[in-house]
């Protein structure tokens, strides 16, 4: 008996020590995790804002005070700009260390060191496109005495000061689960972030699927379906029109499918380069969005001149839409250096300054330009499996190569890749062929421009500072206290050889095909104080091709959001901050205004109610809708189902033989264009050989099918299952996808094509909302879906979500000096000094 007990004890102790120190599988070691003094429990001790912390950042020039207001926003009061940046790094690291770490690892292709083989494919993809390498090269090329390198170092010093002084309870929640420690933050990691944003916003591989469309329906049809000029023109740079212009042309018939050529095969295989995602927060990337179809995501910004506002001051709204995560991508902060800087807004953890926000004179925001800044070149190499050279200008050139090693969570080597580069960029393999990637994101970012612009005193100064910004390209909108408003598409836009077109994969053997330079700044889409009295961007085509026909991009999103915001701004000559706030979640939808009448007309023209009772019922139900995507409406679901059917039935020619879905789907503005041509051959369903379908037939059939789908999925219309907030909800995933740390099924107002577009998967949305009134005193209102803290136990982890869901904004506290901080509104403070003694 004794032996048995000793045996049991030995086994139990051995097992306990093993799982305690090693864990099981990917699970963290149990011991340090469950340890009540130092493990996951300890995180509770650092959940709240410190009431009076004193700490050291050894490199500080002087003392820095950080006061947290009642919204947990840190107000940083420093005496030098470098110190303010150091303090920003410190407070961001305190609240968002895990976020800093994971986004750096994701860019570096080092997630498998946490997630093992599950993340290996993603890591290999990330390294294959050279994001981290380009950041390292950019950093190495910086002048050691430059302002930019000082900035990057100052930020890193702040982050490192926090991590160096961390107590066990300061280790973010996720690390005990992973059984890992944070990566040491280096100055170059801020550039990793810029590359990461470039990948999120500007990685579009339209060249590849467009080549396949050409193979399927011919170049003429492909050019018409995925045009360089959107048929609905509501450009960012006002074109003088009083409303959208509809340049509708009949679509040419599809050509005969041809045998696939090399470019088609290459392009097809390139599908592999849409990154395999393991993290839900990254699951809808720009790459996925690039496969045609309607981009239901989208950012907005708009500004109104004083002569169209109720108070006579310029107004500006920022509404960037991104993948929604917990913690949020944004972190709100205020940086004050008397006489040098007084800027409030949001930073992205890792960025050494405010990205979107305002100062005492100027407010600004950005939307993604979506320009074509990435090209593939088909390369000829000397060896199919182990190429060392590529053919250029009648001679072999050496490929630059380096070896990438991947390690798993145990530190074991799990894969080795050789990444090769031509003079253009990384070489990617597609079947037996190779292509090189030329991409602005892999060149200089222009981080300093972002920082300098935060200190601008006028619209003019802001635009001047932003002239140095490179990538990812953005539509920057700006307003100042002098009543000026302006917008410019900032960043680099390449000039291509020949006709300048960037829609096709070019041969790489001839350097004449290389990019020829960049657009001159004077050619960028731009407007200052337009006669119409407002400006807006919503990712639509920036330039009316009738004004400037230079190639900037292709397959632009349908301008539904631009039409809606412009319509609201045209209709209101007394805009108030409240109205600006309401516009963020305005339920109106320009797409519905076009398609609902088309469905109803087709239904009434096609059939009588007795022979098609279901169609008549669908038309009756749709006619009840006011075309607004309110949370309580019960008809948008029918409309969206019908729109889905309309797209599927119309573009059946784009489904390759043997496939079950189209290789690419034209945007909804192409469908709107097609509505004008009821007998166009694209309406005809190719499978019904003996019947020629026309517009109204397809519209009516889609509406009828939409009703069947809505009933099947959501029940009878009178049963309440069609309420929009039960159908279309937003889901905000934690960065590691843990459901317990995420927020699901949030009932937001908006839908596809709305200013609050609410994507199908519900994982994207308004990541930051801001309204600024530029009066004698700046007034501002903001929110974002999350909270300031990355600690899930903190009351500041997700406290803003309800405000965001309701479409409300919080008034911002914007003190000019530390003496304006009301002690009753201060919930915590950190005093920083070089020796740990703050002022």
């Amino acid at each position, binding site marked *: *008996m*004794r032996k048995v*007990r*000793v045996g*049991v*004890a*030995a086994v*139990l*102790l051995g097992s*306990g*020590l093993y799982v*305690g120190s090693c864990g099981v599988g990917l699970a963290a070691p*149990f*011991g*340090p995790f*469950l*340890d*009540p*003094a*130092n*493990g*996951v*429990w*300890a*995180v*509770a*001790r*650092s*959940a*709240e804002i410190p009431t009076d912390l004193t700490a050291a950042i050894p490199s500080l020039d002087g003392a820095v005070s950080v006061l947290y207001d009642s919204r947990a926003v840190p107000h940083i009061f420093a005496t030098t700009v470098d110190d303010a940046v150091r303090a920003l790094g410190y407070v961001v690291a305190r609240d968002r260390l895990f976020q800093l770490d994971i986004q750096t690892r994701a860019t570096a292709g080092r997630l498998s060191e946490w997630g093992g083989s599950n993340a290996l494919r993603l890591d290999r993809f990330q390294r294959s496109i050279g994001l981290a390498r380009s950041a390292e090269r950019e950093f190495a090329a910086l002048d050691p005495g430059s302002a930019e390198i000082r900035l990057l170092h100052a930020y890193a010093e702040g982050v490192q000061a926090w991590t160096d002084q961390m107590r066990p*309870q300061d280790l973010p*929640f996720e690390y005990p*689960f992973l059984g890992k420690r944070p990566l040491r933050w280096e100055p170059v990691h801020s550039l990793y972030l810029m590359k990461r944003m470039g990948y999120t916003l500007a990685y579009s591989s339209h060249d590849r699927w467009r080549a396949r469309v050409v193979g399927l329906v011919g170049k003429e049809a492909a050019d018409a379906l995925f045009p360089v000029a959107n048929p609905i023109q509501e450009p960012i740079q006002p074109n003088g029109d009083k409303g959208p212009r509809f340049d509708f042309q009949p679509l040419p018939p599809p050509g005969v499918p041809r045998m696939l050529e090399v470019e088609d095969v290459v392009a097809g295989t390139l599908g592999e380069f849409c990154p395999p995602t393991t993290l839900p927060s990254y699951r809808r990337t720009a790459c996925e969005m690039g496969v045609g179809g309607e981009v239901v995501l989208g950012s907005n910004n708009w500004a109104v001149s004083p002569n169209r506002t109720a108070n006579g001051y310029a107004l500006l709204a920022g509404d960037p839409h991104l993948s929604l995560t917990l913690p949020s991508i944004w972190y709100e902060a205020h940086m004050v250096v008397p006489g040098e800087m007084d800027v409030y807004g949001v930073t992205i953890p890792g960025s050494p300054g405010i990205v979107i926000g305002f100062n005492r004179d100027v407010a600004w925001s950005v939307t993604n330009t979506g320009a074509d800044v990435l090209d593939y070149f088909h390369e000829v190499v000397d060896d199919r499996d182990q190429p060392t050279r590529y053919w250029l200008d009648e001679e072999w050139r050496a490929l630059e190569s380096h070896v990438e090693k991947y390690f798993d969570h145990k530190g074991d080597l799990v894969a080795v890749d050789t990444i090769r580069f031509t003079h253009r960029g990384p070489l990617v393999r597609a079947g037996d062929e190779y292509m090189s990637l030329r991409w602005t994101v892999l060149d200089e970012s222009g981080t300093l421009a972002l920082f300098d612009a935060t200190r601008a005193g006028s619209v003019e100064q802001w635009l001047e500072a932003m002239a140095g910004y490179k990538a990812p390209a953005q539509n920057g909108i700006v307003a100042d206290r002098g009543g000026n408003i302006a917008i410019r598409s900032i960043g680099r836009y390449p000039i291509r050889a020949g006709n300048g077109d960037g829609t096709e994969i070019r041969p790489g053997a001839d350097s004449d095909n290389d990019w020829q330079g960049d657009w001159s700044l004077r050619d960028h889409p731009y407007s200052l104080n337009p006669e119409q009295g407002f400006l807006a961007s919503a990712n639509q085509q920036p330039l009316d091709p009738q004004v400037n026909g230079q190639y900037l991009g292709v397959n632009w999103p349908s301008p539904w959001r631009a039409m809606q915001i412009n319509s609201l701004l045209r209709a209101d000559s007394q805009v108030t901050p409240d109205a600006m706030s309401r516009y963020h979640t305005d339920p109106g939808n320009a797409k519905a205004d076009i398609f609902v009448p088309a469905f109803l007309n087709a239904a009434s023209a096609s059939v009588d109610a007795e022979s098609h009772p279901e169609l008549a019922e669908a038309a009756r139900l749709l006619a009840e809708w006011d075309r607004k995507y309110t949370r309580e409406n019960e008809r948008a679901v029918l409309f969206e189902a019908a729109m889905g059917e309309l797209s599927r039935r119309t573009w059946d020619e784009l489904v390759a033989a043997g496939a079950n879905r189209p290789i690419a789907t034209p945007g909804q503005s192409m469908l709107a264009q097609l509505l004008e041509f009821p007998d166009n051959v694209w309406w005809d369903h190719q499978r019904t050989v003996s019947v020629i379908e026309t517009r109204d037939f397809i519209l009516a059939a889609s509406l009828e099918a939409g009703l069947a789908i809505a009933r099947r999925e959501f029940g009878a219309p009178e049963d309440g299952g069609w309420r929009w907030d039960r159908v279309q909800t937003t889901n905000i995933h934690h960065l590691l996808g*843990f*459901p*317990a*740390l995420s927020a699901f099924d949030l009932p937001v107002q908006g839908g596809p094509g709305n200013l609050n577009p609410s994507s199908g998967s519900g994982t994207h949305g308004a990541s930051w909302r801001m309204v600024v009134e530029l009066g004698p005193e700046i007034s501002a209102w903001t929110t974002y879906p999350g909270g300031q803290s990355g600690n*899930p*136990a*903190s*009351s500041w982890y997700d406290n803003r979500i309800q405000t965001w869901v309701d479409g409300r904004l919080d008034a911002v506290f914007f003190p000019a000096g530390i003496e304006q901080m009301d002690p009753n509104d201060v919930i915590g403070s950190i005093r920083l000094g070089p020796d740990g003694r703050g002022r």
Partner: protein
Amino acid sequence: MMRRTLLQILLLTVAFALATVIMGWWAVPALAVLWGLLTRSERHPELVAAAAAGLGWSLLLVWTATQGPIGELASRAAGVMGISSLALVGMAIAFSMALAWSATVVGRTGALGAWGRGKGEEGRVA
């Protein structure tokens, strides 16, 4: 006898708690082995150790609860693991108790092996 046992549990509870704060979770098996070595002539020292370890870690959890929102944390952490908050707390306490019990038995057995059974030990250890 009962008073002595209670005193042992009390002292050991404090020892486990302090040692865990200083050394981390390894303190539990280390201290328990030591306890086993020192108490080879005691009656059921492994039960005393298990009780003390469980109490020591409970004490630390209670102390943490006074410092921050441990309920919210337990709820989030347990949610990640797909268990209830109570189960997570139970898991932590059970882990410490299992380590303490087994390490004491092993430590005591080692002691007995090294020094032989002490006077009066025979027949006491089942």
